[in-house]
């Protein structure tokens, strides 16, 4: 352990931020427990039957249990994992009387469970397991409970190992993306510059064929720069660090359209709900820009319609972007979401083939889903769901 007095200013600041984050985490864990419990039918019934006061008591208890369930030495690194991974992990331990309809009587039960929820959405459950124990059968229950606890503990260790592994591979990908974007791009730019100088200085001396070849070298370099840029964007996509803000979804659609849909030739219509949500705006707009951009870029007539339908249900948003373009044959529906895949030669339609791969990675990273409906001549419709933060105030 480092002595507090030897810490640097940055380290003390980091500790302070960490402390704040812990407080926040604790508050969110409580909300997550209730939210998760609601989704499990047995728990939901119990929660519904408990009055407010009782529920508060149970929550206080479960909070205490959460702290005790983990070995003291592991508590700090465990919380650090939660903080960095954006995951709320909470141990649920509730003892109460449950109505058994078959017996026509109340029986004492213990509910043991563990839940994992995404911090950014609090309610989106990543994983959960629960155990419903009849206290009257506790002789059997004790050993059962011990087995279950051992299982939970082993799951926790497994989870921690996966998290470490994931952190390592994320770091490697980050390093690679940086090397790709910076170190590979620098010599590429030099080649471009040198090519331009040759064209400038030797234009008159060069045969026209050679001038054309030099121009092609220039185009290829620009294309490779774009591939590297998009690769970097892909590797960065879906990181949890994006800032959450409150905004109107229609505004985000309009903003994305303003940079992707040309003023003339294309008509944009936005229909459906007009919700105001709390979520990470930047990645949502990146998804919309990619979808709207595709609708325009791949259109066979260079003019057409793009329809955006918005639906809002609880804390989930679903958006569908439909165009009247050439459509995609069913046999390619899976391929279009893979990295560096294009359906037409890059000399015809400039693109890295990363757009939908980025869309899929961002959406699925946030617990949403992407769907594609299209057939040749029928246009293309790509929809996605997007969990949002529950609005606390109406």
């Amino acid at each position, binding site marked *: 352990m480092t002595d507090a007095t030897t810490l640097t200013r940055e380290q003390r600041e980091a500790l302070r931020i960490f402390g704040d984050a812990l407080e926040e985490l604790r508050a969110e864990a409580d909300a997550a427990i209730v939210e998760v419990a609601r989704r499990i039918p047995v728990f939901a019934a119990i929660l519904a039957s408990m009055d407010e006061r009782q529920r508060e008591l149970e929550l206080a208890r479960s909070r205490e249990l959460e702290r005790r369930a983990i070995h003291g030495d592991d508590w700090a690194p465990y919380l650090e994992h939660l903080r960095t991974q954006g995951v709320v992990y909470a141990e649920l331990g509730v003892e109460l009387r449950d109505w058994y309809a078959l017996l026509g009587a109340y029986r004492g039960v213990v509910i043991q469970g563990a839940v994992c929820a995404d911090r950014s959405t609090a309610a989106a459950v990543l994983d959960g397991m629960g155990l419903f124990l009849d206290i009257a059968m506790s002789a059997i229950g004790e050993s059962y409970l011990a087995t279950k606890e051992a299982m939970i503990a082993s799951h926790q260790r497994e989870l921690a190992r996966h998290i470490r592994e994931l952190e390592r591979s994320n770091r490697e990908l980050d390093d690679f993306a940086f090397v790709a974007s910076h170190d590979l791009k*620098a010599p590429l*730019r030099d080649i471009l510059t040198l090519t331009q100088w040759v064209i400038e200085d030797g234009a008159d001396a060069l045969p026209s064929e050679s001038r054309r070849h030099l121009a092609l070298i220039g185009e290829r370099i620009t294309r490779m720069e774009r591939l590297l840029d998009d690769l970097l964007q892909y590797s960065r996509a879906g990181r949890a660090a994006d800032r959450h803000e409150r905004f109107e979804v229609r505004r985000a659609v309009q903003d994305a359209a303003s940079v992707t849909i040309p003023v003339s030739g294309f008509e944009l219509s936005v229909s459906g709900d007009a919700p105001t949500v709390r979520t990470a705006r930047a990645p949502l707009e990146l998804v919309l820009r990619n979808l709207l951009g595709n609708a325009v870029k791949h259109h066979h007539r260079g003019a057409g319609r793009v329809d955006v339908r918005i639906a809002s249900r609880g804390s989930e948003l679903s958006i569908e972007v439909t165009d009247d373009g050439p459509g995609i044959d069913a046999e390619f529906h899976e391929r279009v979401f893979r990295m560096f895949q294009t359906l037409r030669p890059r000399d015809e339609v400039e693109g890295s083939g990363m757009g939908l791969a980025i869309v899929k990675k961002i959406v699925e990273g946030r617990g949403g889903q992407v769907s594609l409906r299209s057939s040749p001549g029928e246009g293309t419709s790509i929809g996605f769901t997007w969990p949002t933060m529950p609005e606390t105030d109406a």
Partner: protein
Amino acid sequence: MSGARTVQVLLVEDNDVDREAVRRAFRQHRIANPIVAARDGIEALGLLRGERQPKLPRPYIVLLDLNMPRMDGIELLRAIRADRAMHDSVVFVLTTSKADEDKMAAYDLNVAGYICKSDVGTGFIRLVELLDRYWRLVELPGREP
């Protein structure tokens, strides 16, 4: 007009092509201000302090790349600001890095401007235009403090 003497440019850049690009842009725009080049922070410090070579005369401005071997741009900036004889130097950062932390570190060390190579256009045209206007209008620090 600033002082009678012509402003010199100290170009600190490890990439040969970028060094040549700046020289070329000056030539194409008929800017006669002399360019003195250094390939990293250590070479630049040698020139600024006149170690084993004539000292770079004032007035000058520094065009500084960030990623360089031996002593990088931020380290050189720190050395410049810490040296009483040259802490008033006017420095422009010229880099490929768009990273916020680089920008913040540079402005923390009072650079006159942070310029991204990708934004200065083909052949560094906009950089040359900026510099040409800059030293026509701006009074640079003269005598050594």
